[in-house]
């Protein structure tokens, strides 16, 4: 059986480390009925910029035959032979000069919203929390189906 910490995707406290009470309170609020406010608390906020490291790791291409004549989704100009291109992990390609300013503002692919990691710890925590909530729902659903389905 997986350990408590694995199952909850967290680490045991180190020696002398105090639990993060604010985080626990926030979780408690989200898990109780106040979750409906979630959208107002977090949803309105624009996603933060992509982490510098992730952006630096994006591969650079010069134009290959398959891209020639396709439009860059950001500026809508067709890729030309001397253009420097960047590819996101989702394989969507852009002019480097088009995608870099976008990623300095928001962490997701302009075409499909595939997310790059960010340097914003609160946002990353919120994302993990959302993932956990989804897992929990799926587990409850599964349990329900196994009993009544």
């Amino acid at each position, binding site marked *: 059986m997986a350990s408590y910490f694995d199952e909850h995707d967290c680490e045991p406290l180190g020696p002398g480390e105090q639990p993060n009470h604010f985080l626990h309170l926030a979780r408690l609020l989200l898990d109780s009925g106040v979750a409906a406010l979630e959208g107002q608390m977090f949803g309105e*906020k*624009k996603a933060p910029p992509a982490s510098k490291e992730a952006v630096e790791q994006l591969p650079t291409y010069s134009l290959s035959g398959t891209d020639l004549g396709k439009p860059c989704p*950001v500026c809508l100009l067709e890729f030309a032979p001397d253009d420097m291109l960047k590819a996101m992990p989702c394989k969507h390609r852009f002019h480097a000069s*088009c995608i870099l300013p976008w990623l300095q*503002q*928001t962490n997701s692919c*302009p075409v499909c919203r595939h997310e790059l990691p960010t340097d914003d710890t609160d946002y990353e925590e919120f994302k993990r929390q959302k993932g956990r909530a989804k897992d929990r729902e799926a587990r409850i659903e599964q349990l329900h189906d196994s009993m009544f389905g």
Partner: protein
Amino acid sequence: MANIAVARIKREFKEVVKSEEAAKCAIKVELVDNNFTELRGEIAGPPDTPYESGTFILEIKIPETYPFNPPKVRFQTKIWHPNISSVTGAICLDILRDQWAAAMTLRTVLLSLQALLAAAEPDDPQDAVVARQFKENYEIYVKTAKHWSYKYAGAPNRTPELDSKLKQLADMGVDEHRARVALSSCDWDLARATETIFS
């Protein structure tokens, strides 16, 4: 305006003009000034909705930072819809705020607005009065939205029983639009509408 913004708008303009939807007269864009900073959009009210056959005009302002920031869009045609202010025409739609993505275009924005007319989100309202009516008194909402579409968006369906109530207020010397707002907000209860106007 920045070069990328102008170049993009020019291309998008062509995209809309050539689009299938433009051929069906469902969407349209026009220039308002020559520097591509202000445009006028038009969408047709979707079929099987209270907005059917209406023509809704949109004011579109392109920011300097486009396409990294969304265009600013507002309904110029008055409309009764939970996610659009019946007073200012301001729109509550995620892609025009935090969910904007640089690959979206005028065409996708206009189509999203058309979709919004067909599928309101009363739990994320822009106009609280309309949203409440939508949730608590759906039939009256449909009638009211039809009436506004007839009056302001040129839709063909008349709503005679509402017109007679409006006339009663007009006979008391109340301005027509003011009477319409009061009656619409009071679920067409003439006594309550009269009270809000004269109190």
